[in-house]
Each structure stands twice: as C-alpha cells, then as structure tokens.
C-alpha cells in the first residue's frame, strides 16, 4: 500500500472507531483497553515494532502518517502512554526473547498496563542516586524502597523498576533493571497531588516484593545502560510532543486573551505582541526541528532547547495573563489561575531547566564538563538526597 492509501485508510478507520468525545459512562480504563484492542487488531499499534513480537514491522513513514491523522482525534491512550513510549521500546531493545514474547504483545493490545519506576524522593535530576534496594534471595530478588512521580501506576499491571543491587561500587555501576508485578500485595500505590490539586502522579512503596530472576532486564549491575535506553525513548516521546499541541485550548494564548482583554490600551497590546513573538519564535523552531527530522536530521540534544523554551513560555504566559487580567483571574477557579498553577510543571518534569541548560551546554555547544565528585565514590560513601 502506498503512503497516500495508507493514510486514507487510517483516516477512515479513525473516523469509524474513535470513541466520541461525550463523557462516557463506566470504567474509563476498560473503555481504553477495548479501544486499544481494536487499534491492535486493525494494525495501528506498534506500527514500527518488530512483527515477531506483535508489531507491524513498518517504517517511520507509516508511523508519522498515522500520527498526522490521529492529531484530529482524541484517542483514549493515556494509560498506555508509558508502556508504548518507554517501557515497551526498552523491552524490545534490551529484553530477553522470553520477556519479549511474554510482555510485548499484551502491551500493544492493551491487555496489560505499564508504569516506569525510576525517580525517588532523593533521586530526581540525579536518577542514578536512587536508594531502592534489590537483594538476592535464592534464585530471585527481594525489593524494598520508595519511588515517586509515577504516572498511571494506579492502573498498572507491570512496572519497569530500576533498583540498587550493589552499594560498594560507584552509583552508576550498582544498578539493575527489573520487571515488577504491580499487583503484588507488597506494592502500595498512593496518589500524589501536584500544586494544582490534581493527582496525576503516584508514590509507590515496595515492601519486600519478590521478583524472579527471569524478570531481570539486562545484566546484573548493568541497569544504568538499560535506563539510558528508556530515558532516550522518554526524551523522544516528550520532544515529539513539545509545542505541537499548540495554543488552541490554552486560556493564556494571544488568541484567548485578546477576547477578554481591553486591547485598546497600547500597553496591553504591546504585552500581547511580546507573547505572540515568544510563542511564534518557539513554534517556528519546533516546526524547523520537525522539518529537519523529516529530512533525516535527528535533532538530538537540540530538542532540549525546545523543551526549555516551552517550560519558560508556560511560566511567562500564565504570569503575564494573570497580570493583564487582574484580580478576577485568582478567584472562582478562573482558567488563568489554573494555568498559573500548572505552569511550573513543564519546568520540573522530564528534567529541570537547569538540567536542560547543562545538556545544551555539554552536548550541543560541547562545552567542558563540570568536575564530577560522584562518579568514582562507592555509593555507600556518597552524599545523596536531602541532608540536614
């Protein structure tokens, strides 16, 4: 099938099968699983993944064609986003054949939901400083510790878990990756509310949870290299989305603000011009990166610039909009007040602005690295987390 036909067929399928936007009755996860099964059966799940493990074995071209059509629909895929974007690709890249055979197809068909368990309260930007322990127990492992910032954990059947297996070596060298059963009674999932009041994340507590050695991904103490694979996929899936969602539903966009503000005031007008300039500058940069990607030039670390700029734009525009709108914006659940509460999220998730600036400096501009004090010290002697 040529690409035009592929795209036309995909559109027709989406029109026929996407659930309507009306607020549905019943369990949203059950509906999502039902849709995912249809998507899989139609051949639109795992388009570029190997056929052997349940994918379609097609190219980026088909994937992009489907994605382009899908932007016109709201697909109920949220609970699968971690599995499809991060843990699944990691298993395809680094899992054993047994693991691929066991996990990939149910993931692509939406039968099993996945979460990712890397971050900890003491290990945010510095993931490799994590303290969750996995100790040998006969042929398997026993895990204890705490994870945080975990999306969709409340629905998850399986988690991709990074844990410390050796404290006598430097921090990157004593980690191992596992698949953990999120339904085990030793796993406790607690919702974590963010500053806007929403509970989009969870804290996870592991209390002597057993893991069979067959669920180890990669070699013992080689977990960091597996995690790097996962984080690469994470960054790809974030930067693919960065700035593409557009400003359509953003109450702090120029388009929305001009409807509610007095633009006969030259100062108000000039502030909107400034917002327009910044928004357009970033949107055009994102379009340029996308055109480069389509031309086969992968943006790499330059995507961090787009992420940093988006984080700054969110902060700038919610702040500006509330200043312009004045007192009404901070009461009655005003959308601009809500935007202000959400604004820091982009600057704190997926790497802080400081981390982004380090990446740009180190990997785009090739500046000399900072001296590192944490690469050679055995983990047990290293300062980590919060120390009072």
């Amino acid at each position: 099938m040529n690409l035009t036909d592929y795209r036309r067929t995909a559109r027709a399928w989406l029109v026929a099968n996407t659930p309507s936007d009306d607020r549905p009755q019943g369990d949203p996860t059950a509906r999502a699983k039902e849709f995912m099964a249809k998507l899989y059966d139609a051949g639109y799940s795992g388009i570029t993944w190997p056929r052997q493990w349940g994918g379609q074995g097609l190219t980026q071209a088909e994937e992009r064609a489907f994605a382009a059509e899908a932007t016109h629909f709201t697909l109920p895929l949220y609970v699968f986003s971690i599995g499809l974007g991060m843990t699944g690709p990691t298993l395809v890249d680094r899992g054993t054949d047994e693991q691929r055979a066991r996990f990939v197809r149910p993931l692509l068909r939406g039968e099993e939901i996945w979460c990712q368990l890397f971050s900890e309260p003491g290990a945010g930007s510095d993931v490799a400083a994590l303290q969750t322990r996995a100790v040998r127990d006969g042929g398997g492992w026993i895990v204890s510790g705490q994870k945080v910032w975990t999306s969709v954990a409340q629905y998850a059947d399986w988690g991709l878990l990074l844990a410390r297996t050796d404290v006598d070596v430097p921090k990157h060298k004593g980690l191992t990756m596992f698949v953990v059963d999120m339904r085990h009674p030793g796993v406790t999932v607690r919702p974590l509310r963010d500053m806007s009041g929403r509970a989009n994340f969870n804290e996870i507590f592991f209390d002597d949870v057993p893991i069979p050695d067959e669920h180890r991904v990669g070699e013992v103490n080689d977990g960091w290299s597996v995690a790097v694979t996962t984080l690469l996929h994470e960054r790809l899936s974030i930067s693919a989305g960065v700035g593409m969602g557009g400003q359509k539903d953003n109450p702090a966009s120029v388009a929305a603000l001009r409807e509610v503000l007095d633009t006969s005031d030259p100062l108000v007008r000039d502030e909107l011009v400034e917002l327009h300039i910044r928004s357009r500058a970033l949107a055009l940069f994102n379009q340029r990166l996308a055109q480069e990607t389509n031309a086969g030039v992968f943006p790499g670390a330059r995507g961090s610039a787009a992420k940093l700029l988006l984080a700054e734009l969110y902060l700038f525009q919610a702040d500006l909009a509330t200043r312009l709108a004045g007192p009404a914006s901070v009461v009655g659940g005003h959308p601009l007040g809500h935007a202000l509460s959400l604004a820091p999220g982009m600057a704190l998730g997926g790497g802080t602005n400081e981390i982004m600036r380090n990446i740009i400096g180190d990997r785009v501009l090739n500046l000399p690295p900072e001296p590192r004090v944490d690469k050679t010290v055995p983990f047990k002697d290293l300062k980590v987390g919060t120390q009072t």
Partner: protein
Amino acid sequence: MKLVLSQEQRELRAAVRAFLGAASPLPKVREGYDPEVYARLSGELGLSGLIVAEEYGGAGAGFAELAVVLEETGAALLPGPFLATTFAAIALAEVPDKELLTAIAEGRIAATLAQPSIDLIADEVAGESATVTGTLAQVLSGMEADVLVSPALTGDGVIMVAVELAGEGVTRTALETLDLTRGQARVELAGARARVLGPRTEGGVGDRLAVALAAEQLGVMRAALDAIVAYAKVRVTFGRYIGSYQGVKHKLADMHCKLEQAESIVRYAAWAADESPGELPEAAALAQAYVGRACFEVARDHLLLHGGIGYTWEHDAHLFYKRAKTDEVLLGPPRVHRARLAESLGL
C-alpha cells in the same frame, strides 16, 4: 528619610515573629483562618490598633511600624482578616465617624474594605443610617470580616458606609481562591442596613493601601528566599549540595538583590506615608510596581529551584507562589501602579 529600623522596631519585629512562629506555623496555615490567633494578635500584641490614633484606643504608631508587622504576617502567610482589617482602618482614619476604628483597635471586630470602584448604591440616607444595594465581586476576607467599609453612591455624591456582614440583606458567597491561605468572598447587598461614616475622602487612602500591601509582599518574598536558601544547603544532587552549583547560586544571588531593593523601597514608602506626604504618591506606586513584581518572581523561582518536590501539594512552595500572585493583582492589574507612577512623575 529613614531606611533602617530602630531598636524598638526591631523588638516589635522579633515579638511578632516569635508569636507567629509559635501560634501560626505553616502546617497550621494550611488549616485556614483561626479566629483565636487573630484575637491574640489584636489582644496580646495589640496589633489591630497599631496605627489607630491613641485618642481612638490605638497605639498611634506609624507606617514604619505597620510595615514591620505586615512583613511578618506576610512571611508567615497568616490566614484571616488582618490585612483586610488594616485596609479598613486606613480608610476609617479618613472619615469623621471613628467608632468603628475604636472597635477595630480594641479587637472587637474584624473589617474589610471594598475595592475602589463604586459598586453600591445608598438609599434612604437619613443621618447616620442608610440602606445599601449592589454587588461586590471580590471582597478580601469577606467571609471572615464582621464589617464591610465601602463607598456608596447617593443622589448627592459618594459617601462612605459600613455594613454588618452578618446582617439582613447581605448574602456572602465564599470564592474558590488561588491563594489557599486567605479567602475572598462575593458580597451581595439587597437593601442592607448601613451606617453612614461621612463623605468619601480620597486623602491618599489608595497610596497607603499600596504601601501596606508592599510590606506584606516583602515578607512573602523574604520567607520564600529563606526557604530555598535553606533547602539549597541540604539538598544534594550529583554528589554536591545544589547551592554549590552556580546555576542555583547565581539565581539566589539575583533573588537576594531583589530582596535588598524591595526592603529599601518598603522602608522608604513607609517613611513617606508617615513623614512626607508629598513623596507618598510616587513612593506608593513605586512600592507596588517594584515589590509586587519582585515578590512574585522570587516566589516563582523559589518554587522552581526546589525541583519536583516544589510542585507537590504537600510542599509549602506553592502557598508562597499563589499568595504572591494574588497579592500582585490585589489592588488591580499591576499596570495601574505603573500608570500612577508615570502620572506622579509627570511623564
């Protein structure tokens, strides 16, 4: 011009700080307004009457002292009607009828002040009494205050009135507020009984409100900066305290520069309110224009520098961020202060 605190002012600061540290720490702030704390602040510390003239039962102190106190209530994110009552007291100082001022000084009532736009109409004005109708969209501490002070339109011009908020003809609706530590309410008056306080007086009331608010903002930003500086000394990433990275250190240095300037401006504006009425309009507009902005920027950066933990509901960082934004727009969109500054400079 006096920009440094006297020994007495430093003692006042220490006393208020110690009281709030014990009576209203941040975990308690999350539970909202505690009338008991407000009663002790008025009673034990006599702060509700701080700037009320002695002849009306107050301490007769100036804005220099008021600024010291509001800086501390700001730093503590004190919930409840203390700022609103201060606003009302500032307005009441300018009307002939001083009875309410005495009630405030004695801690008998908490009050609040309507925004400068005139949304109420007074009918049946007869001597000290009138009936008032209209809707106030946002009244600071409107659920907690006992009395509303407001301008109202009559056939003869604008007068100042006071309305018992628990009285008949008054409907109060608590508003959902971004600021989780201090409420606002929508207040509808339908022929509510009002006390006539006298003709409306301008007399720099708006300027004094601006100075009082700036003092609170100074406290909010100071506490936010203190919190993130403390965290930068204990939080480790990549084997080093985060405060040792220039990416963090230099930002904290810039925040410190803003704080130094904000404090200088607040002291100046408070001095002008007390001693130099001619300078007050410019000083007050400057205070809101600079301190309001600086306070939000510092609160925002203090939140961001906390990293992920600062984005959680359980952490206090967002309480400062939200108070700072709410304060920034409390007296109107910030451009009004810049416009008043331009005007006072004759630009």
